[in-house]
């Protein structure tokens, strides 16, 4: 091996690629493509199911392409009032929770990004924020407390408890720490107070990190289902994922036997489930590339640098 490489050196600066290396590159590309396919195929399969006829779906003919193409499943979803009511609850929840969460994260991360000299009492706050990260009351005490607050059956039960995502605060705090201090000092000399500096100097610079925590907030609220089931009294108040949990999963996660499964396969709601799954996924697919540009940068800068 070493001899060969010496030869390469003698031939000049251009590095020759050995045949083993070429073979590895081909294998590597093939393998990575296969891995990517493995991530997408289950989703594509469900998409194909949603466009297939119930018979084709239940008889297992559907692979990655629809069989007996039909829009019946989507027509069912469009007509399904429960689905859209739940969709509306989720949108309302997002509309209230995401802006509030972002404001809270932003204004909380800023003082914490200052060091002990610049912000007296920072140490107290870090301990105060650490404890909820490490320790919680648990399911029943939380439920009892929220019940005392009168939040059960109220959409605010899905919003208020999650307004301070501490890991996102830390992410933004780390991001702010890495900003050049001179900018703020310059603004300070010009007479800008901390609040003014925060919104005019810091805000434009933290866009990648804010985009990252916004993506987490949006996806988090879009995806959360357990709080809806726990804190809402009635299925009418369920957000979309809680509704889907009860409508598309409950049949098999509670009383499942091999026979039931066989029976379920002959009932034609298999394709409508697939369609609901897909419709519920679309918003994430739309939001995702929009944030992705900032996302890797925000995440890496905010989390890795300690």
């Amino acid at each position, binding site marked *: 091996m070493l001899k060969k490489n010496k030869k390469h050196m003698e031939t000049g600066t251009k590095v020759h690629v050995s045949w083993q290396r070429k073979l590895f590159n081909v294998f590597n590309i093939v393998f990575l493509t296969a*891995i990517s396919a493995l991530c997408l195929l289950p989703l594509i399969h469900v998409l194909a199911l949603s466009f297939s006829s119930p018979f084709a779906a239940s*008889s297992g003919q559907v692979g990655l392409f629809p069989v007996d193409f039909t829009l019946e499943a989507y027509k069912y979803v469009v007509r399904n009032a429960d689905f859209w009511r739940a969709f509306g609850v989720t949108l309302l929840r997002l509309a209230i929770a995401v802006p509030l969460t972002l404001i809270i994260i932003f204004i909380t991360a800023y003082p914490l990004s200052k060091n002990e000299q610049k912000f*007296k009492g920072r140490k107290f706050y870090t301990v105060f924020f650490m404890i*909820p990260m490490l320790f919680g009351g648990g399911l*029943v005490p939380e439920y009892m407390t929220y019940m005392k607050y009168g939040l059960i059956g109220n959409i605010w039960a899905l919003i208020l408890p999650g*307004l301070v995502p501490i890991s996102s605060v830390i992410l933004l705090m780390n991001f702010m720490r890495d900003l050049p201090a001179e900018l703020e000092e310059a603004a300070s000399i010009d007479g800008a107070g901390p609040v003014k500096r925060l919104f005019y100097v810091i805000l434009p610079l933290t866009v990648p990190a804010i985009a990252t925590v916004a993506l987490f907030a949006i996806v988090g609220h879009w995806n959360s289902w357990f709080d809806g089931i726990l804190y809402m009294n009635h299925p009418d108040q369920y957000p979309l994922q809680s509704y889907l949990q009860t409508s598309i999963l409950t049949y098999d996660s509670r009383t499942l036997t*091999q026979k039931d499964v066989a029976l379920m396969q002959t009932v034609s709601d298999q394709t409508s489930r697939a369609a609901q799954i897909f419709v519920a996924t679309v918003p994430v697919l739309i939001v995702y590339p929009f944030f992705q540009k900032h996302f890797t940068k925000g*995440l890496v800068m905010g989390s890795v640098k*300690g």
Partner: protein
Amino acid sequence: MKKQKKSRKAVSFPAIKTQMAYHALMLPSCILLILFSYIPMFGIVMAFQNFTPAKGIFGSEWVGMNNFIRLFTMDNIQQVLFNTLYIAISKIVLDIVVPVTFALMLNEVKNRFFVRSVQTITYLPYFLSWVIMAGVFVEILSPSGGLVNNILGFFGIDPIFFLGDKKWFPNVMIITDTWKNFGFSAIVYLAALTSVDQSLYEAARVDGANYMQQMFHITLPGIKGIVILMTVLSIGGILDAGFDQIFNMYNPIVYETGDVLDTFVYRLGIKDMAFSLSTAVSLVKSIVSLILIVISYKLAEKFAGYKIF
């Protein structure tokens, strides 16, 4: 401290104003944390009571450690604990090995477009909820007509009831979790790999090091720190086997191998209304996690210079 303040008195007025502004900015999140994190913690006293909602925390009778004694003598608690540890530890290990390997392989590809496409696709599943993914997996793992069993059938293998088989269930949880998360977990490793000093590789090539030697002497040492850090930080999750995932896919047939602490707490507390017992389980879990997290963060600080705040 006092001396310092006095000597700075000339500039102290705007400084105080700034301090007040900082405290004011902290206020909303502190109030929210008190209301929604700290106050519920007091509910933990339920674990030492025979709590009934009608009597409330102040009226329920105190039973000392009875709930804990009952808890540790329950006949399925050992099994639940074993399931939790088996699933959680396997997930922790795979969620390091798979993303690191994946990142190393992806790092060898020079075509930026290919790299970005692969990344975008592989971390998409991370953003889909377990409700959705459970729907997808129930579908493709179905013993009658599911995609996976169809493919197995093609090779002459009898259908496997993945989600209804005691042996398969925990492993399916581990594999599907890794499937969902590896792309996302790989982000930090890829970032670490791209920040390895490229001139080291050039120097190594000039010295005649082959690819494997470069891998073992430059690449791996370059990401060692972050791998250790991520490993240490994941130790705190050793009792978190993944409630969202398991709750959405399990069923009474696989309770024996699939029931974990969090699902157990849920069934005790919400379905069986054993409030005190459920809270006792939560408390034990919280304390064990707390100890592990504190230890792991101390280790992270010591070995990787990592500080959360």
